[in-house]
């Protein structure tokens, strides 16, 4: 049930912000501070999510095979690999390290 509540809230919230962009007068969101905050929010969220999903097991921090996988993804990004190669490298390296007992 909790999962359905979360799905309902996310679906409604995400739809309404999309619609708001198309409906509100253009000058409402065009204040420089609002624009800069909107650009920085995803940066903060994505950085925190990357770190948490790399190091967290429940509410504890740990270092396991995922770290090697995400490091491989980072290397692929530095080498300007396409999106699918980046994700594929993370999955493959994690699987190999885990199979080796990491």
């Amino acid at each position: 049930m909790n999962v359905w509540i979360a799905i309902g809230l996310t679906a409604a919230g995400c739809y309404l912000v999309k619609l708001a962009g198309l409906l509100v007068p253009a000058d409402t969101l065009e204040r420089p501070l609002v624009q800069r905050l909107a650009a920085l929010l995803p940066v903060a969220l994505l950085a925190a999510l990357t770190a948490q999903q790399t190091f967290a097991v429940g509410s504890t921090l740990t270092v396991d095979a995922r770290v090697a996988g995400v490091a491989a993804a980072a290397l692929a990004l530095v080498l300007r690999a396409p999106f699918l190669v980046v994700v594929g490298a993370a999955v493959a390296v994690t699987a190999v390290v885990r199979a080796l007992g990491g």
Partner: protein
Amino acid sequence: MTASEDRDQVGGLDRGPERGRGPVGGSPVVSGARPDRAVVRDALGVGVAVGLSGFAFGVTSAGAGLTLLQTCVLSLLVFTGASQFALVGALAAGGNPFTAAAGAFFLGTRNAFYGLRLSQLLALPRWVRPFAAHWVIDETTAVALAQPDQRSTRLGFTATGLTLYLLWNLTTLLGGLGAEAIGDTAAWGLDAAGPAVFLALLAPMLRTATERATAGLAVVLGLAFLPVLPAGVPVLVAALAAPLVLWFQGRRIRRGDATSETSAKRDV
């Protein structure tokens, strides 16, 4: 997802818009009227790349413990990739539905700013907007903004939206089914797909010191509060990195530091 030289490399459901660049292969868009076929080819290129990451979402969502129906409803009704990955990640970590939805919602707020730019370029009648709104995401914005005139902007938006919507939902279903078939997703390293997707979306956003400082602070906050706050809350605390960095920057400017003022303006 967001503008840099390698933006075009990112093919998740959250690719950022970058006006004046082709969405495929990084080739600059030639100005002037574009043939419909070229616009549709852009849309299909983006759609195929993103459709494949829908597979990763389906697998991740199933691995997070959601049912196949829940996974598919998310892709059908939320239809913005980073928010979907964030939501299933938060639920898997044991977050309550409200904090989990809040994190996903804040990631989705950027779509409002895409809509703002698109509404001027598409010039849609008011009654069409509630229908078009569902497709206002990174990739449709990227393709639409890259078009030189209103006709091709509308075509690019519609073709990308349609292609993505069909492929994203189809591959989500396949991913969910595939995860059920392979069983333990962690043994296959699929638990690394989520963070890798986030990192791929984040990388092209890290253009200036402001963005890098925000990301660094968010990582510290997100990890430091993880053991002490309920699941899902630490990521919301980490989101405070954005206003904090802006506030510090504003304070430096008010102190009359001419150098930081110029650099701050350049960031906009």
